[in-house]
């Protein structure tokens, strides 16, 4: 049984404290959705957990089965079992999927010679054209192909916990269904020596959640989890939007010259 425990996580980007104390616990087999308006800190959360340069952790913890993730380098987090499917996968000219995953296998003490076959098998499973396997990473791939590519890598890397950042953007309905079913299956069964996959879905819209039903839905706004509920919360958000948790913009953007500059903006 694997457990990702995020407690009181605070982080700063470019001088602004975007995360102001986030608490989420994801266990094996569970699907958690983090929803929220644009700018609420959703993507920051995913980047901070993976250790992207430019994001400064200012407080709190994130532990994977007791291991302090925030003290590890990015590649060690991956090795520990964390995976991030990126909203905007990065192009790496001249480097193929096989090259990368073989290096990853070696670093994890696994057999590199098995990678090629695993990749081909996984590609067939999610309907990712095999001819893309030899291409440079994310170069000349459509948005949908990039997302399939992210899912494909997840299948080969076999993580304990996967963070899926806006996985649905760029995918058509069929692609979304295939990938959702695939992820759903991974959350329902043990995979080799791994427990079922735990998933943290980060999304603005509930489109993905109609295919990949979450067990728990969190609303992230203004840097904090504002409320947590069951799958019905996603449906409700689809109807009502996030207005309830966003500050009135006019009031927020006009600074009061007499205000205490050190006051908690959410107080």
């Amino acid at each position, binding site marked *: 049984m694997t457990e990702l425990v995020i407690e009181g996580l605070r982080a700063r980007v470019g001088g602004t404290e975007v995360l102001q104390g986030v608490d989420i616990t994801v266990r094996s087999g569970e699907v958690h959705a983090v929803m929220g308006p644009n700018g609420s800190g959703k993507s920051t959360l995913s980047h901070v957990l*993976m*250790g*992207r*340069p430019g994001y400064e952790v200012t407080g709190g913890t994130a532990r994977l089965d007791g291991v302090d993730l925030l003290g590890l*380098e*990015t*590649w060690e*987090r*991956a*090795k520990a079992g964390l*995976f*991030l499917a*990126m909203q905007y*996968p*990065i*192009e*790496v*000219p*001249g*480097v193929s999927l096989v*090259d*990368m*995953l073989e*290096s*990853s296998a070696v*670093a*994890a003490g696994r057999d590199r010679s098995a990678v090629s076959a695993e990749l081909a098998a996984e590609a067939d499973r999610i309907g990712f054209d095999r001819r893309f396997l030899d291409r*440079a*990473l994310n170069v000349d791939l459509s948005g949908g192909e990039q997302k399939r590519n992210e899912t494909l*890598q997840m299948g080969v*890397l076999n993580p304990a916990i996967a963070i899926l950042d806006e996985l649905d953007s760029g995918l058509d309905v069929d692609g979304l269904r295939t990938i959702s079913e695939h992820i759903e299956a991974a959350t329902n069964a043990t995979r080799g020596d791994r427990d079922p996959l735990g998933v943290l879905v980060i999304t603005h819209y509930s489109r993905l959640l109609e295919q990949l039903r979450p067990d728990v839905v969190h609303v992230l706004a203004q840097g904090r989890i504002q409320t947590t509920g069951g799958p019905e919360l996603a449906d409700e958000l689809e109807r009502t939007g996030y207005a309830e948790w966003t500050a009135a913009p006019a009031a927020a953007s006009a600074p009061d010259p007499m205000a205490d500059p050190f006051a908690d903006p959410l107080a």
Partner: protein
Amino acid sequence: MLNPAESAALPGPEWLVERRRAAAERLANLPVPTVEEEVWRYSRIGEVDFESRPATTVAGPAPADIALADTTPAAVVKVANGFVVDIAVADDAVFSLRIAGDDDAAALDRFDNHDVVTAINDAAAPTPLILDVPRSKTVEGPILIVHENSAVGATVASRLVGSIGEDAEVTIIEHRTSTAGDQLVIPMVEIDVAQAARVTYLDVQRLHTDTWQLGQLSASVGAQATVTMSQVGLGGGYARMRADCRLVGRGATGNLAAMYFGDEDQTLDFRTFQDHLAPDTTSDLLFKGAVGGHARSVYSGLIRVAPEGAGTNAFQTNHNIKLSEHAQVESVPNLEIENDDVRCSHASTVGPIDADQRFYLESRGVPPTEAERLVVSGFFDEVLHGFPYGSVVDALVRGDITTKLDRRFT
């Protein structure tokens, strides 16, 4: 600068002996250039020791065979210490490839090359190589010229003069190594590309890291003709190559590309000149390289559009990766435009390994050093595979690149 007595000892027809004598005489009066001159700015010309490096007067052992991956050459030329020692051409070849003989005096005069580098070549090249491809002939497979220099403490000059007829097509690959380090090499290539002809020239420079080079590539491109001049620069202590592409006929095209990787104490110095002398001409330049250790790279290029160059399209891009804080990169693109009806652009970047690319690989479990290595290796892969005969060139230089990557990323 170069002892005339040495060049007098070199073989050849009368006109060539006289040509060498005249060049040696000219050299005696030519001042050594200084870095004050724009074309020698950032160079190490002041450190070149001309005096103690006499011209080679004897050929060395013939170079070993070079295998080209999945490719059969149309001809193989072996050059030892600047001396052409073997020319292997099929009997039914559609072209002529020979050492300059009695009737070839005019060929060496086709280009207006009159600086110190070309004067040394004139005085010291023992066996200028002449290539003629008649009109409408297509040469199947590349002409491979293999240089291997072993002379210690010498000046080694080589020269190729190509005349490619109307609507003809040819590819030339030069592969250059030196086994003895202490050496000054003066390679020179002059290619005249007639109307509608297609020429690809590739220079694979893998000299010893103690060898110095001052080189000159020149192409003159006629109407509707295309020349592609690609360079791979890996070796040399100070290795300079100047590439001049003169687009002289309407609708001529010149593509210039280079991939370079310097490390330790190397200086790799590239000068380019895209000269638009006729209407509707196009030039495209892409130079990409990396430097690590205490190495330095210099890219300085000029796009010039003459008043006659209406409808010119000219592009110039230079990207550099700096792999260590001690490495240095100079990148100086220049434009000189004397016609209003042109489309020109230049871009140059210098930076460390892309942080986002690194992060992406690391997020998949690749350790930082390995991630950097993959990114840099991929950078070179991408450039090489954009070259004509990309996989052939890749096979020739992959070992050198790996050695350099191993030195940097361990």
